[in-house]
């Protein structure tokens, strides 16, 4: 087991290196001169050249990559020129907020999606299945930012149940209940699409498993139907569902960008969009690498969970 985890972690190293190369190359393709972007179009040529040398931009591409990678490995992501602070500090500040939002949404979509898929499969072609299928289609078709806006209109403006934006109240907030009140709407809005996708795939995986011989064996043993479905069948179906959870985690993380815009959530997604509009290259570069690395790490966890569930892949 320990060997498997180690192997899985080692196999992530080339992926992470590849990610840094891709990000670095994309960023290097940005047309125009970063120094000009920083100093503005009125800067003198001498100043531009001095800044270029200071930033190491006069060196060949490969050398710049390795310098950046070396610094990265030492935890130095460079400085954001627009915010004038270290990139890593900014990312870490923002990432906590994104993690709370995306993490909650992920837990929501995993539980709701799997439960809906199981019920749907167990009652195939029944009214519950039809209702769930319809809601799922609606869920995967609605743009999350539109859903978020409509939720604000209904629950914040009309009903005044929940705050419309931000992470904490400005006056007297800051405790956990306050966070939960702020988190409810964005987390749900973010979870909807992934819930739909997971529900669909869970339904398919369950239908596949329910036809297997070992389900008939469980029934022949006299195992109650509820346990056949939620125990025997779901356990086997999870082997197919867990990889999908890993992929959906990426979609939740992606969707967080929109939701952070709509709900003014101080997360890393909004930071990235701002950085792109301001052409703050080091911040974009560092942010993308950081999130991609987290995503790769999460997928290692998914694989480990998979191997815990399925003894056949441990060897």
């Amino acid at each position, binding site marked *: 087991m320990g060997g498997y985890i180690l192997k899985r972690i080692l196999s992530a190293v080339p992926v992470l290196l590849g990610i840094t190369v891709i*990000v670095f190359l994309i960023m290097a393709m940005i047309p125009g001169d970063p120094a000009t972007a920083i100093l503005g179009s009125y800067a003198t040529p001498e100043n531009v050249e001095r800044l270029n040398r200071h930033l190491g931009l006069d060196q060949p591409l490969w050398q710049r990559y390795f310098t950046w990678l070396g610094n990265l490995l030492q935890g130095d992501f460079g400085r954001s020129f627009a915010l004038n602070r270290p990139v890593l500090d900014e990312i870490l500040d923002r990432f906590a907020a994104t993690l709370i939002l995306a993490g909650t949404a992920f837990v929501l979509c995993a539980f709701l999606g799997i439960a809906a898929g199981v019920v749907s499969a167990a009652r195939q072609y029944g009214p519950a299945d039809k209702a769930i299928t319809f809601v799922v289609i609606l869920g995967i078709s609605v*743009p999350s930012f539109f859903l978020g806006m409509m939720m604000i209109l209904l629950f914040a403006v009309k009903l005044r149940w929940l705050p419309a934006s931000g992470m904490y109240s400005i006056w007297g907030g800051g405790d956990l209940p306050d966070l939960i009140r702020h988190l409810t709407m964005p987390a749900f809005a973010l979870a909807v699409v992934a819930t739909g996708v997971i529900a669909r795939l869970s339904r398919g995986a369950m239908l596949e498993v329910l036809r297997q011989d*070992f389900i008939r*064996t469980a029934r022949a043993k006299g195992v109650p139907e509820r346990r056949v479905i939620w125990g025997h069948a779901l356990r*086997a179906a999870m082997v197919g569902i867990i990889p999908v959870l890993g992929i959906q985690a*990426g979609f939740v993380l*992606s969707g967080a960008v929109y939701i952070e815009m709509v709900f003014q959530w101080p997360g890393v997604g909004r930071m*990235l969009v701002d950085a792109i509009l301001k052409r703050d290259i080091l911040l974009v570069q560092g942010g993308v690498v950081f999130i991609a690395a987290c995503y790769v790490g999460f997928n290692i966890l998914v694989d480990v969970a998979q191997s815990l569930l399925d*003894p056949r892949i441990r060897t």
Partner: protein
Amino acid sequence: MSLFLRLVFRNRLAGFGAVVLGLIMLLALLTPLLPLHPPNETNTANRFLRPLSEGHWLGTDHLGRDLLSRLMWGTRLSLAVGFAAALVAGLLGAAIGVIAGYAGGRTDNVTMRGIDMLMAFPYILLALAIVAVLGPGLFNALIAVAVVNIPFFARNIRGVTVGIAHREFIDAARLAGMGNARILLTEVVPNIVPVVVIAMSTTIGWMILETAGLSFLGLGSQPPQADLGSMLGEARAAMITAPHTSIVPGAMILLIVMSVNLLGDGIRDALDPRLRSGALSRPMAATRVERTVVPPAQGDGLLRIDALETQFHVGPRIYHAVNDVSLALDPGECLGLIGESGSGKSVTALSVMGLVASPPGVITGGAVRLRGEDLIGAPYEVLRSLRGRKVAYIFQDPLSTLHPLYRIGDQLIEAIRVHEPVSHAEARRRAIELLEDVRIPNPAERARAFPHELSGGMRQRVGIAMALANDPDIIIADEPTTALDVTVQAQILALLDDLRRSRGLAILFITHDFGVVAQLCARVAVMYGGRIVETGPMAEVLDAPAHPYTRRLIACVPELGAGRRALAAIPGLPPAVDDLPPGCAFAPRCDKARDACREGEIPLSGTARQVRCLFPEVAP
């Protein structure tokens, strides 16, 4: 093609999606011809007019521009970008996939590692990075969305191509001296076009959502030009005071994407052969029963099956899997039920406890009486409490019939605890005892093993142990030795015989092999085409088979040490039970068949020895 369309439209939701999408596309095409206000004509005096205002059906936005006009033009733009992105991603992805899959080896490996790396990004990060390079703009957003989706297509198409590249017709083309480029274009590409089209139709919805998203963030279309996403983005500032400016474009995106998704699902389902055959339906907890008459009990005994009829209803077809089958089993007795695959022997056995997969299985008649109590149509809870406790099953292939993810000990413990409220520790002790009873060495240690860690013979012993867990009265063994080696087979048979003698078990032993049950069973019933054709004491049937089918079946068993002789295979195939000929089902394969055999019902005649034949080999 017309079949395909019929299949798509049979799904009402898909039909609805097709109609809505068609209508929206038609309107989008006609937009320049419609009498609309110019979409970018501002009129700040008329800001935020409500819907149904004069001259502005849907009202106006924050600059007093006509919302209806902007909606139509925006829809046009969003649709065009979504389709274009799908097309670009589909074509480039397919090209990469085809080349990697066809070339194989190094090229394939390197390409696919690169694709994997791209897939390691949450998609929006990549899209954002690309927009960062190219700068905001609708065309750049299109490129970003297309590029982000290339890996998805490349992967799918590569998989399909690998499958095709190893088919015979490709080898044939190569032997005919065709070059790689020509093979790719004339042999491979035509085969993957449908796959690409399906993949595109199911992802267009996503593409539209993603470009709308980038525009919403301000990274897509730039003012004054607007697609649906940027309309929504601009309206957000006035969301609370003028919600209609947000709702109009948002609802349009929802409508478009939903109709695309519904249609895409319909297309995919129509092309999935498994859905068409109904093979993807899940079996219910107990077989469906549609019985009109309950036949009277023919006698008593531990288990009596009277005039059982089980059918499979697949679409308009009805397969008569079990047709008027009656059997009886006394305590401590072993009854062999023999027949070829498809003869209905397994379905008969599964019908006893309502375990026939349903849909498509339906029990349409007959009775199954356990100590006089009829089980057909019994409430689920009654059936469940009898399953495993009074009547237990042993199935054919223990690798697929044991749960692959539970330790065998836990599977045994569960079998005990679902019927008896004993503690976990007590159940474990008994589980280990059971493993010992079926002669598994180191039972305590083996209880911790997963099914895949045991040999076939060991697994079957676990299956037997599980059947014994609640000391049942009856064991129904459905080809329990078919998947095993001959020596292991002999051990398992000896084990079952021991258990029958020591516990007084009644065994219904199902097999296709006379050799297997000859020693084990005292009586035998032979099935063909869903009916019993002969039944009687084992020794008598073996000595002097009455039905020609039984005789031929016995002749198929090779005898050790009996010298060389021609093994007489039975020509032809067992009948398809959805279209049984009148008269004897075996007549088409029988060398003694006469015209009378092909007319009318032939009864099962005799008392202790029964045979369903007009011209039996011996008088019953």
